[in-house]
């Protein structure tokens, strides 16, 4: 089912998705992004500075939110013009194979000119909102 500009309206919901994040994902993200902050890979240090566990990079979660929107919008990562989030809570990532689950949902907030829409995104981990004021303007086919 391909979403098109004409097929959506204000309030159209994006099919929810759950993405898992494991320690391996954080190590790969650290390498790819160059963000080697120790709280994202060393549990001993993370706990010593008062964190519940190793926590995911906020930018990793934002990247997942971007993927959530562009997969819905036809699969073109270049279709995003504006994209902003507020990081409202941490995503602790346990040292096991399952990792943490982040649930994404969203809806169309506004239809704009040029086949673009603004999407409001919600991301939750363990019931807590980890992104707020998360909005992307994306061009639809």
């Amino acid at each position, binding site marked *: 089912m391909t979403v098109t500009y004409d097929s959506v309206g204000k309030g159209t919901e994006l099919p929810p998705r759950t*993405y898992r994040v494991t320690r391996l*994902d954080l190590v*790969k*993200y650290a*390498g*790819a*992004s*160059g*963000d080697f902050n120790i709280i994202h890979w060393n549990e001993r240090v993370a706990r010593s*500075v008062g964190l519940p566990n190793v926590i995911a990079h*906020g*930018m*990793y979660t*934002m*990247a*997942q939110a*971007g*993927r959530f929107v*562009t*997969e819905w919008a036809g*699969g*073109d*990562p*270049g279709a*995003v*013009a*504006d*994209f*902003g*989030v*507020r*990081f409202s809570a941490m995503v602790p990532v346990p040292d096991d194979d399952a990792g943490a689950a982040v649930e994404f949902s969203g809806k169309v907030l506004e239809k704009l000119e040029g086949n673009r829409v603004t999407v409001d995104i919600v991301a939750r981990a363990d019931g807590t909102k980890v992104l707020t*004021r998360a909005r*992307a303007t994306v061009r639809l086919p």
Partner: protein
Amino acid sequence: MPLNPEYVGRVYGPGEPYEVSRVKIADFADAIGEASELCRNREAALKAGYPDVIAPPTFAVIIDQRSTAAVVTDPGLGLDYSMVVHGEQGFSYVRPLHAGDVVVATTTVESIKSVGALSMMVTSTSIDTVDGEHVCTARSNLVERGPES
């Protein structure tokens, strides 16, 4: 320690040019689970109307954070980076970054606020090609937790 409010309006850069490469884009796409062929296959990207493989929308954070490093490590600002959490992030694109782009970044300190033990700094980074084409503006809000919070 509150951040030095005199730093509002300061401009850092443009720094050394950053060359966007196919390998780096593919590595980044792999790391975030972005499956699109447009990030990996040049033919697919050309067919979609792009000059080369394109970067996912959060890729620009690599360039943004390299540029804002000059600000956060400036001793006169008084930021304790070990106490910093990422508050907000945003990107406004004129077009996607693609392999072969050679860009420079210029970071401006937009605002500094202190509320109780928290300090907040908003920066704006303009990412432009070395030929002067504006590609993206990245906005970042860093929050420094106070020692007692």
